[in-house]
């Protein structure tokens, strides 16, 4: 008997030691919402994802403030091996009265027990994923929520204020006065945004542009948001001449599958001083998010304002043609920026996709039908005027 127990313990030990334990659970969407209707009923459908396609049991639970107002159509989901996803529907009965503001509940899916393809039950931490279910009860009267955001470069900054009308009434006029201060609290500039009107529940933006004429450094923007006489103060600290490395391009030339791929990463130092000891890192994943590669470049010093091509190599031995997920990370000055891309690997090429080239973040657009038609009509009117007033008189 003792021998049997010892053997069992030994087998478990080996399985635990050698087994490449892996489990996964997903849920989408990660958040859903509805407009509040007193006593209203709303249904939300979520997809539980078994991305590793292992046989497993998943427990479905409702949590949070709205848990008692929600019902779910399944308490347990059983995935057979090779089953990838299953749907769950949550029904929310909105209470007849609720205080104004955001109210939230959660649908939580938790692994109960997973079984590997060999039939071996796995051990370790239970994985749970949660999706938020929420609604917003409007405030009586007029009420808005806004956030001040600053974007742009050393020459031009854009101050944007996305606003949501969280009140029950229409707001006729929303605008803001933005004041920029330096680090010594000296006022630098005053800017007025455009003015808009908003219906209840509307999400809109107001903005102002600033042609920067100050030295590099930290600044503070204070916006007084005015909506039909009510005021809200918003603040945002920002930098002129940001310490930033911008990823401009990523490409591979002269590649053969199975060989070593040379990645050229074009970056620009947007800061006024050199950025030292920076390096690039790329992680490549398969469909199941298994890490296939983790490669790094050498250290680079990038002069102020200049573009540099950082190079790193990836040995594609054992790789197959296909599309792979990848994260490109830039490490510099204690900061880390990440760009998610896809690598489309062919026999003799690697195409990097997902790096859409941004050419601007401001302005309303280019030409329009109206402009073109106006030009044509003006031209024809002038032609006719010339004919009737000048040429006809001569005859």
């Amino acid at each position, binding site marked *: 008997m003792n021998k049997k127990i010892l053997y069992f313990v030994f087998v478990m030990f080996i399985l635990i030691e050698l087994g490449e334990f892996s489990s996964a659970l997903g849920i989408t969407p990660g958040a859903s919402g509805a407009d509040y209707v007193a006593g209203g009923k709303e249904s939300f459908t979520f997809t539980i994802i078994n991305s590793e396609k292992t046989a497993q049991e998943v427990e479905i639970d409702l949590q949070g403030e709205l848990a008692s107002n929600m019902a779910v159509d399944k308490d347990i989901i059983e995935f057979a091996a090779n089953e990838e996803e299953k749907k769950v529907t949550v029904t929310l009965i909105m209470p007849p009265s609720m205080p104004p503001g955001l109210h939230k509940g959660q649908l939580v899916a938790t692994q109960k027990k997973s079984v590997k393809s060999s039939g071996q039950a796995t051990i370790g931490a239970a994985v749970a994923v949660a999706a938020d279910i929420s609604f917003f009860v409007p405030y009586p009267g007029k009420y808005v929520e806004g956030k001040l955001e600053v974007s742009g470069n050393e020459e031009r900054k854009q101050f944007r204020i996305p606003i949501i009308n969280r009140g029950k009434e229409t707001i006729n006029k929303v605008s803001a006065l933005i004041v920029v201060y330096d680090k010594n609290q000296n006022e630098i500039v005053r800017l007025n945004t455009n003015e808009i009107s908003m219906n209840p529940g509307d999400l809109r933006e107001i903005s102002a542009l600033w042609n920067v004429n100050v030295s590099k450094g930290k600044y503070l923007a204070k916006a007084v948001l005015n909506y039909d006489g009510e005021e809200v103060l918003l603040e945002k600290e920002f930098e002129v001449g940001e310490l930033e490395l911008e990823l401009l391009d990523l490409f591979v030339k002269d590649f053969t599958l199975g060989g070593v791929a040379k990645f050229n990463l074009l970056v620009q130092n947007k800061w006024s001083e050199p950025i030292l000891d920076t390096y690039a890192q790329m992680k490549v*994943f398969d469909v199941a998010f298994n890490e296939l590669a983790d490669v790094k470049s050498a250290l680079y010093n990038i002069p102020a304002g200049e573009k540099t091509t950082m190079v790193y190599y990836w040995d594609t031995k054992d790789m197959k043609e296909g599309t792979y997920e990848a994260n490109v990370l830039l490490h510099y000055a204690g900061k880390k920026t990440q760009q998610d891309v896809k690598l489309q690997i062919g026999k003799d090429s690697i195409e990097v996709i997902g790096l859409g080239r941004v050419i601007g*973040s401001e302005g309303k657009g280019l030409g329009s039908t109206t402009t073109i038609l106006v030009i044509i009509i003006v031209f024809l009117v002038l032609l006719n005027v010339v004919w009737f007033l000048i040429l*006809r008189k001569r005859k």
Partner: protein
Amino acid sequence: MMEKLKKIRAGDVLVVGTSLVVLLIALVWVGYQEPLVIAPKDGFVSKDPYVLFSIEKGSVLLIDETPSFESPVKYEIKNQTIIHLKPGVYYWKVLGVKESKVRQLRIDSLVDLQLREKEENYQVINAGNDELKVSFKESDTLLRTQILRRGESANVSGNYVKGEVYNE
């Protein structure tokens, strides 16, 4: 005199007629120049953050979080471009000689946690498409929380790991 009048009238007809023909051609030409949007279709919903934009007769793609395009991001586009978008609702249109209609798309957030054994430890990986707040618990006692970006991993502590979308 009558001959002169006839010539003038003929001239009037020629000028007005030519103007009308030119105007008609211009209207037809402008109508033909509307960007042709092949993908994504209006109301597109996906959990894949990589979106293929396929267009013809357009050169600039505008994407914004509001339908009024108050501060759009502009992309240069040549027939096909794949753009990485964070989860959310977006409005987009294409500019060429004319503007396309405004279309909407939605990227649903995907909360996906993967647990892996690595060097005698367990690691949890954010395999979803959004930034996650990950909580580590031991028998209902919260040990710590950590924010994980897409593709980032963390060592597991405790016997329960929960991931949810991180809202700043």
